[in-house]
């Protein structure tokens, strides 16, 4: 397979600083050597590649935008986007999990007090321990603020009852960042607690069978009179929803970046296939229709990439339009990139449908990016609200 780092036509290094090109290079190399050769096996056997992720963490990928004093790499949102995009060319599903892990560590780093930061962040940055983000429930997906998991204050503990659904890493991870209701209805009644596997009353549902994202387990997380110390609360009571949403702004850039990587890899695969496969006496690449198709894919990919990187810069600078830009970027990039991967599959003809060929896995793995971290419908809601209130 052509190295995903051959970028003349995909232009993934365009406009980057020297440092950013170095980060990207390490991520591409890691993806090509440590992930790409195994992505099919991880998918088929549903392996959660703990050792590979720990190797990645040794390079600094466990807490990319977490502060260095607790083991993070202290890089920007744009650096992070570049890195996840490159890693995703090796295995999109695993990179997507790593981005969720990174989001959780950032939440603790940013909203935790000194004691919490020192307690949780170092072992998460090294990926000695893994994290999961718990917001969605069976009864509340898009309507996240209507979540029901209750956390009743009892002395210096909270007692949790309820359940979370579709939790990435659930059951295999060690640290759970859980949004739960400590107060009245709506977003203002929600707080954020950090739970650890092994706490009595914390259990997990069956491992879900998914179309993609098979290198990370997905399970329900169940709380039955689960006792959590008050010292595990991030921020103030009632701040939880805001913490969750701020985490998601970055999470949306990360997920969109993973889609970019999958599309980048798929374009290269399609390009390779078109030059090698012959029909009617000549390579497929001699057909103008396919040439135009490839050109359109590369152009759409670049457009999506620029939107994502622009949103990353806005978030890094704390600009007021950052949340809207993140929503627009997530919406645009995940939709466009799915189309690109799908078109790349089509260009492979019948071979594109075989699991021996990687393109189908990129299609399956990024399909869910249009759904999670806020459905693309919710992204439209956010943008529309922003347009109509002004």
């Amino acid at each position, binding site marked *: 397979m*052509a*190295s995903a*780092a*051959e*970028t*003349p036509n995909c232009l993934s290094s365009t406009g980057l600083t*020297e*440092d950013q*090109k*170095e*980060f990207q*290079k*390490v991520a591409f*190399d*890691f993806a*090509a050597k440590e992930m790409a050769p195994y992505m099919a096996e991880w998918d088929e056997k549903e392996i959660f590649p703990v050792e590979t992720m720990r190797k990645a963490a*040794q*390079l*600094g*990928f466990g807490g*990319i935008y977490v502060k*260095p004093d607790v083991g993070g*790499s202290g*890089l920007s949102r744009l650096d992070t986007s570049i890195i996840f995009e490159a890693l995703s060319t090796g295995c999109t599903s695993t990179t997507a999990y790593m981005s969720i892990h990174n989001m959780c560590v950032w939440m603790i780093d940013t909203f935790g007090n000194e004691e919490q930061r020192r307690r949780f962040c170092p072992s998460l940055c090294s990926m000695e321990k893994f994290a999961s983000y718990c917001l969605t429930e069976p009864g509340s997906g898009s309507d996240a603020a209507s979540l029901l998991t209750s956390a009743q204050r009892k002395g210096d503990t909270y007692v949790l009852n309820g359940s979370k659904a579709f939790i990435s890493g659930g059951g295999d991870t060690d640290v759970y960042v859980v949004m739960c209701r400590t107060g009245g209805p709506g977003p203002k009644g929600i707080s954020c607690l950090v739970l650890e596997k092994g706490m009595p009353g914390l259990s997990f549902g069956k491992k879900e069978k998914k179309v993609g994202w098979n290198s990370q387990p997905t399970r329900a997380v169940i709380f039955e009179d689960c006792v959590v110390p008050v010292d595990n609360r991030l921020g103030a009571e009632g701040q939880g929803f805001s913490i969750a949403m701020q985490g998601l702004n970055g999470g949306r850039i990360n997920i969109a970046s993973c889609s970019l990587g999958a599309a980048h890899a798929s374009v290269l695969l399609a390009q390779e296939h078109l030059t090698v496969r012959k029909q009617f006496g000549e390579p497929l690449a001699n057909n103008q229709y396919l040439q135009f198709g490839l050109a359109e894919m590369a152009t759409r990919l670049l457009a999506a990439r620029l939107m994502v990187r622009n949103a990353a810069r806005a978030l890094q600078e704390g600009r007021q339009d950052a949340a809207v830009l993140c929503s627009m970027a997530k919406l645009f990039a995940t939709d466009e990139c799915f189309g690109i991967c799908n078109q790349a599959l089509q260009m492979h003809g019948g071979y594109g449908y075989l699991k021996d060929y990687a393109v189908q896995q990129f299609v399956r793995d990024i399909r869910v990016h249009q759904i999670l971290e806020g459905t693309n419908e919710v992204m439209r809601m956010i943008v529309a609200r922003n347009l109509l209130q002004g």
Partner: protein
Amino acid sequence: MAALRVLVGVKRVIDFAVKVRVAPGGAAVQTQGVKHSLNPFCEIALEEAVRLREAGAATEVVVATLGTKASQETLRTALAMGADRAVLAELAEGAAAGPREVAVALAALARRLQPQLVLLGKQAIDDDCNQTGQILAAILDWPQGTFASRVSLEPGAVQVQREVDGGLETLRLRLPAVLTADLRLNEPRYATLPNIMKAKKKPLEVVPAADLGVPAGPPRLRLLQLQEPPPRAGGEKVESVESLLGKLRHAGRI
């Protein structure tokens, strides 16, 4: 601990994964817009030098290359992998260099920097010359240990295990010495994000190649012509061993 400086020579080459194409004219390959990387054998040499420093056997690793301005990116990668400082022997844009010219530049640097050990890759993956280390040792009149698969420093000497046609050969060379790294010497590390950031602060000196005695003008080794290998012809399946032998005899192969 007595200072023991290691000089590592590296080369910027077209990345191993790129499908190389002959440029129009047939006397060069296309390099415009093509991905370049640190030569894999040079990477192995650098890794060995960094390990020697980490083990306390060496005190400083200096990485150097003869190339145009673009080679700075290769030096930065080397700094990110753990070299302490870098030197670019700068060629003018469009200028070319071969093993002889590189050896002249590295020899001049060796006289300036006084390393106890010079480590190079055994060959570059673009020209596969496998000459630079040998020429360098001759210019400096230092012992050489090429195709190194194991290196260990002793007081005043280095023990080198070499991969040779007959198997493995172990030599002890008095320092200073020139070694060239073979594939099995080690597995190079990835640069880490923190090291990439630290690399920014490490010194990178640029010296005009002429100042190191590299003669101006075309390299001593001149590439006359390049052509792609002929397209692969179809094979043929035969039904029996006798038939196979007959065909091989007929083709003059046996």
